[in-house]
């Protein structure tokens, strides 16, 4: 058992620097009886390792196929194939790719795919692997126990520790393996001896040790950096970075639990995940991905502000995203078709590779290099609409998210997008209702609204869905858009519109109608004052009466008065009309066209109204 509490930081540092890490203690690790040393041992270790050059992982992407692995360096200069049946995800560890195959753990050269070593798996599954540039740290596990195992560059077994504790994903640096466990510790284990040389206690969930660009981090939900402040992790004063609060479809994980053994095929959790890499800004502050993180949802990738989680960009790939990595700026993703996409932090294409075959999943690492900046991408609104088109009809959660994001944008193109979505048979009724709600709130894109209102259901020309008349009416009335009046009036008498839409159109016409709309209003009033058979239609008729009174002059008032006295007028309408009449000002001196004298006939057709023909 290590007992470091009694050691002062200074004496420990002396021991570490003077005698080497392996001589700090000789106890095997993962002991629950360990006494907190207030960060002394981990500080001493960090100080020793600090001067060593960073060893980033290879810049490579490796896919799992039905017959083995396919790999490519990110610069595209090397492409390789390895035959075998992967029983674990491929793990990029330094310049190696480590994978479980049958009863072996196999290490391949990341740039060539050639086998470097192979060792027996001891009947356990490969949970994690890391490499410090020379030696490797493996964690093997089953449901009862875990094994930490050091492996030399030639594949010889070095130190090992078996424990009943569930060990997490390891990292390695300077001959030391860093192994998270028990959700609060990271033990530093000498790769050669298997002795625990230091331990870090953290107050946040920790099951992963990771190498990002040669720098080590520990955590799960968030990451703390293994640096001079790591010793303060137990008092939450270490350098730390975490994701903003995300409200994304599928509730993606970032790193996921390091104590879960992965499989060699992508599942929903693989396809729905966050890609974010910690990096240091110029002033040393720890940030994520230069300000941008990404989250995949099957074939769609969302680019988000790393602090606010606001949507910055959206990409839709041709196939599901089955793995990838975040760089200090930008991302590398592979899709199930085997295509590898390099994106800069704005989501723009920074290059692509083809692995040459479909892949079940993939692993990637960007080493210490950011993705190069590419051309500026399109505006967000068209990106969102493109992504919506790419979504499968059963991906309602992603559609809901994107539609909500659309609603936040001021771009007039959003209005067009919402109009198109509201008329699309592709989305669910629930989402259509949401697009309609957002459309009704739009304050720009008026021309798109007017253009949409000019459309009607038309079987002959193949326009088989009416425009979203109700939301358009609300939005245009709110902006007092007089040009909408004749278009809305025409929609009153189009039975392809829902009664609810007609009610909103009539409501808008109370405000927007002019004398030019009188005939359409009066026609609607005549057709439905006695036949309105639902609540919306009743409301529409009453609104129509208000509009008729406002623009119809004496003739309009006569029409409404007669209806209010006619026992055949629908009861709810009849009950409301006296109130409408009393609220309206006495008829203006000016009468509507055709309203004076003999009453006009009802408007005959949509486009070709007849002349007044019959007296009543």
């Amino acid at each position, binding site marked *: 058992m290590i007992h470091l509490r009694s050691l002062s930081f200074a004496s420990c540092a002396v021991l570490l620097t003077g005698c080497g890490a392996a001589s700090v203690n000789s106890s095997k690790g993962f002991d629950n009886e360990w006494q907190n040393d207030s960060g002394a041992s981990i500080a001493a270790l960090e100080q020793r390792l600090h001067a060593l050059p960073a060893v980033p992982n290879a810049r490579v992407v490796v896919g799992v196929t039905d017959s083995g692995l396919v790999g490519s360096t990110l610069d595209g200069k090397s492409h390789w194939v390895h035959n075998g049946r992967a029983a674990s995800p491929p793990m990029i560890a330094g310049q190696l790719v480590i994978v479980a195959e049958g009863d072996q753990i196999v290490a391949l050269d990341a740039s060539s795919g050639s086998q470097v070593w192979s060792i027996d798996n001891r009947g356990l599954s490969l949970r994690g692997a890391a490499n410090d540039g020379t030696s490797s740290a493996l964690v093997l596990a089953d449901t009862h126990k875990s094994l930490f195992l050091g492996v030399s560059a030639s594949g010889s077994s070095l130190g090992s520790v078996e424990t009943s504790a569930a060990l997490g994903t390891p990292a390695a640096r300077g001959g030391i393996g860093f192994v998270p466990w028990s959700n609060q510790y990271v033990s530093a284990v000498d790769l050669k001896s298997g002795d625990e040389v230091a331990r870090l206690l953290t107050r946040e969930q920790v099951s992963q040790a990771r190498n990002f660009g040669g720098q080590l981090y520990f955590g799960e939900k968030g990451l703390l950096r293994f640096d001079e402040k790591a010793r303060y992790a137990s008092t939450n004063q270490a350098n730390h970075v975490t994701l903003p609060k995300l409200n994304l479809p599928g509730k993606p994980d970032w790193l996921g639990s390091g104590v879960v053994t992965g499989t060699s095929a992508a599942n929903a959790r693989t396809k729905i995940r966050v890609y974010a890499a910690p990096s240091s800004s110029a002033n040393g502050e720890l940030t994520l991905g230069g300000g941008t993180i990404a989250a995949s949802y099957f074939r769609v990738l969302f680019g988000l502000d790393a602090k606010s989680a606001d949507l910055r960009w959206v990409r839709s790939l041709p196939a599901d995203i089955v793995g990838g990595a975040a760089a200090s700026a930008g991302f590398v993703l592979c899709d199930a078709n085997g295509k590898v996409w390099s994106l800069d932090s704005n989501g723009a294409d920074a290059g692509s590779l083809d692995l040459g075959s479909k892949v079940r999943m993939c692993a990637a690492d960007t080493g210490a290099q950011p993705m190069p900046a590419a051309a500026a991408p399109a505006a967000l609104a068209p990106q969102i609409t493109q992504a919506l088109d790419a979504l499968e009809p059963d991906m309602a959660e992603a559609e809901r998210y994107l539609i909500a994001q659309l609603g936040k944008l001021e771009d007039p193109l959003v209005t067009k997008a919402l109009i198109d979505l509201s008329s699309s048979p592709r989305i669910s009724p629930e989402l259509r209702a949401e697009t309609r709600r957002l459309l009704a709130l739009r304050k720009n894109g008026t021309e798109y609204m007017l253009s949409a209102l000019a459309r009607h259901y038309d079987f*002959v020309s193949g326009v088989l869905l009416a425009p979203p008349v109700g939301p358009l009416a609300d939005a245009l009335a709110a902006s007092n858009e007089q040009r909408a009046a004749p278009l809305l009036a025409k929609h009153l008498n189009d*039975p*392809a519109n829902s009664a609810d839409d007609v009610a909103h159109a009539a409501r808008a016409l109370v405000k927007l109608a002019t004398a030019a709309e009188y005939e359409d209003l009066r026609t609607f009033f005549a*057709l439905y004052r006695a036949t309105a058979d639902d609540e919306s239609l009743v409301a529409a008729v009453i609104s129509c009466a208000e509009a008729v009174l406002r623009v119809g002059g004496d003739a309009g008032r006569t029409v409404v008065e007669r209806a209010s006295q006619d026992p055949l007028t629908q009861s709810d309408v009849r009950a409301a009309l006296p109130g409408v009449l009393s609220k309206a000002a006495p008829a203006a001196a000016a009468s509507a066209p055709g309203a004076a004298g003999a009453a006009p*006939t*009802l408007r005959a057709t949509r486009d070709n109204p007849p002349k007044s023909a019959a007296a009543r």
Partner: protein
Amino acid sequence: MLHKSLIGVIGLCLGGLAPALANAAPAPKPAAHASLNLAGLQKALESGDEDRALAALDEIEQAGSASAAPLVEGVLNRGASSKLLLRAIAVAGALGKESSSGALAPYVNHRTAEVRHAAAVSLTHTKGKVAVQALRDALRGSDPALRGTAADGLGALGAKEAVPDLFAVLPKAVPEAAGAIGTLCSGEECRKFLALLGKLPFDVMESGFLPILLRTGNDVPDGIKLELIERLRRMATPKTNEVLRTALATYPAGGSPKVKSALDAALHGHSVKSDEP
């Protein structure tokens, strides 16, 4: 026995209106000898008493007097209960005054299917440009049944300007458009219709063949009829033979002897050749 749909088509060709339309809006009866009390009828129609108004409409229909058409139009212009509207629409159709088309037309767009249908049928009786435009609008509408009625009506009204629209809806589950096209098409349009043979299901096009074969004017050259006869002969199905037999049996006296001979020859299995380009 004649195929049921062919009987309908013959009715359309020879009688001017499809039987369905004729049934829905009875033909005007001869004017009654007794003159109508128009003032009294107007009072009843505006009374707000549904029974009184219905009785007044009955009386107007019985009388068949076109002078009462404005009273019926008044009911339609003011609006009324569904029951009263349906009656007024039928009576307007029965009176057959073109002036009523303006009052009927908006009801083709009513939200109640029964009202729409009744209005479309009555418009085929009241006729005129307004009726044609209303039925063309109905052809564009969202009510499949109404589209069929509108297509029939456009054929009955001789609305040649609607032929492009009828071609547009023919492949979209509006087989009634075939009968109307057959009734209305001119030379090139008839050729276009024939070109669809084999591309559209026979059942969809069937109602258009007899009208073309039985047309007696100059709009459809004999060459087109002969081509149609030959194509039907070659198909040699029970349905095509039925069309040819019916055409021969009902061939109009003023029709082309050459076409009649071709029908006879085709039914005897002989090839029919057109000497026209």
